[in-house]
């Protein structure tokens, strides 16, 4: 395991209600400042693994270490972005973005100041006082992302954040996410079932096998991103190779 792994998963297994084995003996490290994806067929336990790392559900066996400390529950160095956005329907965008800070007891003026900055960062300036039901799926997830950024965690855990967002919005969002993360130097663990999304976004792709999920292969696409546009990246040989390599592995799992 690499020395600069900020998150280390050691022998993690998860059995639900003593019957369903979701994960078995997963061991891997997530390098600091990189974007790693957990990719696999549905039901492979990738969301379960993410939630175990997030401290939202306990592992049945094994341990997770974050920044050298054993995970016993959620922590301030990890922030979560949910598949279904998990926004408070009765709260404005501003309050939703500030909600993590509100729970930490940050004074109103201070947390709203931070929230306003994050709202600008995710491209929602002007929507501070709208309610989630007035926003499209893509915009709601920007709120979810801004909320995660507002608590200034080192690690952002994203659970299929774009799965309820239409394709065009998703592509735009992906580009902006890459840009944002490059500037913020965050460690991101990203769950997806989209091969293209994984290859496009990731520094590192962790392929999980079907249930019970375990690490099947780790791929490092090694795409030189630099200042290149999204289209250039999508024509990059390494990008196309990664997509192909992933598909060659995953196709065996598809019944």
């Amino acid at each position, binding site marked *: 395991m690499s020395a600069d792994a900020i998150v280390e998963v050691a022998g993690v297994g998860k059995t639900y209600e003593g019957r369903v084995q979701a994960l078995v003996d997963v061991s891997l490290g997530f390098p600091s400042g990189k974007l790693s994806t957990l990719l696999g067929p549905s039901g492979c336990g990738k969301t379960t693994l993410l939630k175990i790392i*997030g*401290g*939202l559900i306990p592992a049945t066996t094994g341990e997770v270490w974050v920044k050298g400390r054993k995970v016993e*529950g*959620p*922590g*301030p160095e*990890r*922030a*979560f972005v*949910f598949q*279904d*956005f*998990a*926004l*408070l*329907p*009765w709260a404005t965008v501003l309050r939703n973005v500030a*909600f*993590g800070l*509100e*729970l*930490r007891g940050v004074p109103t003026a201070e947390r709203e100041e931070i929230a306003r900055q994050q709202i600008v960062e995710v491209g929602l300036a002007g929507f501070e006082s709208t*309610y*989630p*039901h007035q926003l499209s799926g893509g915009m*709601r997830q920007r709120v979810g992302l801004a*909320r995660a950024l507002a*608590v200034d965690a080192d690690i952002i855990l994203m659970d299929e954040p774009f799965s309820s967002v239409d394709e065009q919005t998703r592509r735009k969002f992906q580009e902006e996410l890459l840009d944002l993360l490059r500037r913020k130097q965050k460690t991101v663990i990203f769950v997806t079932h989209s091969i293209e999304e994984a290859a496009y976004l990731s520094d590192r792709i962790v392929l999980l096998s079907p249930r019970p999920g375990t690490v099947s292969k780790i791929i490092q696409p090694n795409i030189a991103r630099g200042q290149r546009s999204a289209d250039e990246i999508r024509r990059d040989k390494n990008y196309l190779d990664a997509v192909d390599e992933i598909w060659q592995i995953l196709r065996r799992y598809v019944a």
Partner: protein
Amino acid sequence: MPRTHRPENPRVLWHLVSFALVFGCWEIAGRWPISVAFPPFSQTVLALLRMLADGSLPKAYLSTLQPLVIGVILCGIAGIGFGIGMGLSRAVEWFTLPVFIILQAAPMAAIIPLITYIYGIGLTAKVLAVVFLAAPVVVMNSYKGIRNTNPSLIQMCRAFLGTRSQEVVKIILPHAGALIFAGLRLGLAMGFIGVVIAELLITPTGIGDLITYHSSVADYPEMFAAVASIILIASLTIHGLERLERRLFPPELRGSS
């Protein structure tokens, strides 16, 4: 041409038309006459005005509203308390839920003699009749409101380091607010039923007394006026609360995000 057309106006018009239609039929049926005991609409209205003028109707309502208001306030405090307790704690749920399920299913008219037997014929008995009828719906609504909290929001709260009490105050209670309020509204509706049953079955007081008395001396317009007045007051109150509910808890701010 500027659009001054407001969608409200035709609706109000239709409301008026439907009222005119119903009251017109009532008038015709009363004059036919269907039965000597069925007064036309106009006579009922006149009787209502007479009872307002001689003070018998206001006096009756003063005494009817007493057990109703006390009972509904009791349900509001204790009922919502029990409901929230049941929603939050499995132990309270195990202990309390069966009681309210039984109360909800029990035919109230059959229990009223029992209440009279134990608590006599005074205010206590009438308050209890209101409480027994109104409490189950208040409690069950609060309980369901709490239990139906979107689990994803609770997980979000935990992920962002919310404590259990923050989870209750900032997620669960706001989420349940609309259902709790709806429970209170339905509780009040049941309370109206309870208080009239109590006044008819326990001792004739208030509006129950007006109905029984005027029917016994064959003052049918007065009897109908008393019946119509309680229906009118109950529906207006419930309707008003429903509008307040929509204003306090707009449906689009309640749904899942």
